[in-house]
């Protein structure tokens, strides 16, 4: 199945870096959003988006709130979500786990880590988790 990514980050620089990294990993289909609210609008409007990569700290609606909104939605509740954030303290990670994030990457990341986490999420989804 071809992946269509939604990259959510208030930093334009970070969105470009994530997109460039994904392009180098061989992915081609991307949509961008600058905050959680924008992401929800784009997810509702485009049902072909099947993977979300989101930052945590964003104005209007944070990444954590975005995950909660996705999980509570009947249609997009199972969409895989990878959190990419500077927040690396245990309490934050546990909070993200409670919100049912699929995996978690601490910035600054390397493309290798990004590939590893995407593969892990896809493998877990393929395993029926």
């Amino acid at each position: 199945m071809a992946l269509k990514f939604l990259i959510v980050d208030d930093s334009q620089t970070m969105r470009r870096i994530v997109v460039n990294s994904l392009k180098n990993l061989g992915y081609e289909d991307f949509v961008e959003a600058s905050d959680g609210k924008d992401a929800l609008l784009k997810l509702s409007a485009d049902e072909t988006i099947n993977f979300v990569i989101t930052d945590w700290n964003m104005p209007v609606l944070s990444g954590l709130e975005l995950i909660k909104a996705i999980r509570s939605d009947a249609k997009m509740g199972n969409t895989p979500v990878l959190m990419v954030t500077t927040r690396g303290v245990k309490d934050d990670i546990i909070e993200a786990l409670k919100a049912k994030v699929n995996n978690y990457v601490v910035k600054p990341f390397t493309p290798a880590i990004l590939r590893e986490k995407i593969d892990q999420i896809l493998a877990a989804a393929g395993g029926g988790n």
Partner: protein
Amino acid sequence: MMSEENMTQLFEKLNDLKKVFSYGEKLIPVIHSLGEFMKETVPLLENINQSIAESTAKIPKATNQIQSVTSATEMATTEILDLVDVLNNDLINIEKTMLDVLVKEKDKEDFLKSLIPMLNKENAELFIDDFLSKNSSAEKLGELLLQVGKMKNDSNNIAVSLQVQDITAQQLATVNHLIESVQEKLSALIEDFDNTKILDNHEINLPDNASFDPNARYSKSSVPQQEVDSIFNQKSQKASQAEIDKLFS
């Protein structure tokens, strides 16, 4: 007529009064010194107030300058990313062209080798092999392709390193937030002191709804990611949420 008892009481009261006056006499120089001290202190306090007011008025300039640094670095980072994209695209084109040339070199080699049986001459194979070893560019092209691959990798690493811009922007936003808090406190102090408002003419122009991680750090250490992975591994081993909470509480 006053009784003797009443007279005694009167004298006692007069004695008490005398003691008060004598205490007052001792107190007067102290009160005088206090007055002198106050006279000297008030201008000092006014100076302090003036300094605080001037410093507070400068804070918005500092925060706005920090904000402009963030904007400038974001612009510069975008320009660098644009250049890296151009560089990457050029390298991809060069790589593609070199691969085409390499294929043609192989074709040429195969063609020349296919001539050997047709030439039907002694040492034809040796002659063609010698010609190819002296004139083939395949080996050099292979080396150049490795170099191009390394350059592509380096340019991608430059782009990845530019994550520093996002992280420093969050650090600067944290500093701005702290400065803003200090300014609010100082302004309140000035307002209490002489009923003047500092904020009226010196607005801080920070973006609305700024969101940042106060602990953001740029570190290439793999330890933070390992900690995350350790928590997620425990989750994948079917540890219950309560167990995870207990472990890290």
